[in-house]
């Protein structure tokens, strides 16, 4: 899946000359934590976050005479270009969702402005968007039950399992296959659209696979 499918396209941007006061107002209004800063032709020049603004404004009462009124005056007179991050970590329209996840993780940022080939902002993708994609991928919220099967790490096991599930005429709404703690094994998670998982579990066990009993791995 590509970033373009999951990014927010209607986004709030700020001009470099916009004040910190205005940027903070926009963040509160739209419940967002960062705003891409763009030049007149839409080219990305920076990003300003609520943290950047907090760090730029001294806490009131810490300095004699620096009142709430003074802080507001400072914010109104300071353009975002003074505090914004100029080296922005961005995604491109052709990046995949995996690229975005790795970028967000490795660069420890909350959001990636998505830029087109001309360097213009086409959207933004945030950690929240990625979590949403993950919720979908896990099948959370779909009417279903969960099965967790430990299989030998070799070709063909997933196919065997899906064949067993399919013999019960039950839809699989999510599949996840990950490394298992034991070397040479994999964990396969299925969400299946049925209440009646007992017979499926039994058939999987009879085929020689290990079903994880959730009560065993939860209790200390």
């Amino acid at each position, binding site marked *: 899946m590509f970033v373009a499918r999951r990014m927010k396209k209607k986004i709030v941007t700020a001009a470099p000359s916009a004040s910190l006061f205005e940027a903070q107002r926009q963040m509160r209004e739209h419940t967002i934590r960062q705003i891409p800063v763009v030049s007149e032709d839409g080219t990305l020049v920076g990003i300003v976050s609520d943290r950047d603004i907090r760090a730029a404004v001294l806490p009131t009462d810490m300095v004699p005479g620096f009142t709430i009124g003074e802080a507001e005056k400072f914010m109104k007179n300071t353009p975002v270009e003074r505090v914004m991050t100029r080296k922005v970590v961005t995604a491109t329209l052709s990046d995949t969702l995996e690229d975005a996840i790795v970028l967000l993780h490795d660069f420890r940022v909350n959001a990636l402005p998505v830029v087109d080939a001309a360097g213009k902002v086409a959207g933004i993708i945030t950690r929240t968007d990625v979590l949403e994609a993950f919720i979908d991928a896990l*099948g*959370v*919220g*779909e*009417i*279903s*039950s*969960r099965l967790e099967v430990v299989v030998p790490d070799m070709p063909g096991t997933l196919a065997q399992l899906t064949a067993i599930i399919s013999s*019960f*005429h*039950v*839809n699989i709404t999510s599949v996840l296959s990950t490394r298992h703690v034991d070397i040479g094994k994999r964990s396969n998670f299925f*969400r299946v*659209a*049925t*209440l*009646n*998982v*007992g*017979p499926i579990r039994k058939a999987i066990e009879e085929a020689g696979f290990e079903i994880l*009993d*959730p*009560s*065993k791995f*939860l*209790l200390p």
Partner: protein
Amino acid sequence: MKRVAWIYHPDYLLHSPPFEHPESPERLVAITDHLGKAGLIDRMVVVTPEYPEDTDILSVHDRDYLNRLETACRRGDLTLDSEDTYLNRHSFNVALLSAGGAISGAKAVAEGTADRAFCAIRPPGHHAGPDVGMGFCLLNNAAVAARYLQARHGVGKVLIVDWDVHHGNGTQNIFLEDPSVFYFSIHEHPTFLYPGTGRRWEIGKGKGEGTTLNAPMAPGAGDAEYRTTFEQTLEPAVERFRPEVILVSAGFDAHRDDPLADLMVTEEGFRFMTRHVVALANKFCGGKVVSILEGGYEPSSLTSCIEIHVRELLEE
């Protein structure tokens, strides 16, 4: 001894699966045999359920859904939407009579012909929503009974205690924004079990915020965890809400022998829960409890738990 209404109809056996399925008429055969042999039915107030009025069903379900269900049965469809929820040509009528059974139990208690009621009905109801049947459920019996009490008997506030091991997503959705019906569900955690809803932060919406309460149980939880939840979570909520009637969506599939889930509740757990609900009812609503059968798929534990449940309702 309290007067407990016994709601049952032989036609409940007509809704039978066209393929192997855990929700079968044999469940009710086992229950009636067992309670009969134990001499319990003789000590109950036998009430024959009637078909409900259209308006009572339409207080919960959409007309379009009823039409769809009726057509599917008449056409000979084997399932409704998913393989889980089977149909035969009797299913529409039996579903109506099942909801009618919940109404009959509520009526007996509301009119005082009985102090409490146990409705041995099927198909179960708590997964069914206004326009959808799922998870073996066609019509939401408990929701219909709650609405009936409000519409016909001037009842204001109803508490539904759902201890079926699965979350009653249908019931929750029906009353999500309704502050007059408090929905409490204790069930296996949605990450592990069908239907995948009933997380602890699902607490209702809008005006109904605060009158939905979910207690998901980790796999392996049993009597002790259930007891703590009833005493520390349910009880304070009931004290605040002050219901006028308590309905129980009584599933017995949290039992350790039940094949459909991973919990470890025993007969003693169901004894405790029944006793606790009865005590709450005695304290807040003149003892009025209407217990409505939901799940429970292992015959031996199903029948032994229901025997205990009924004995506790009788306070013999």
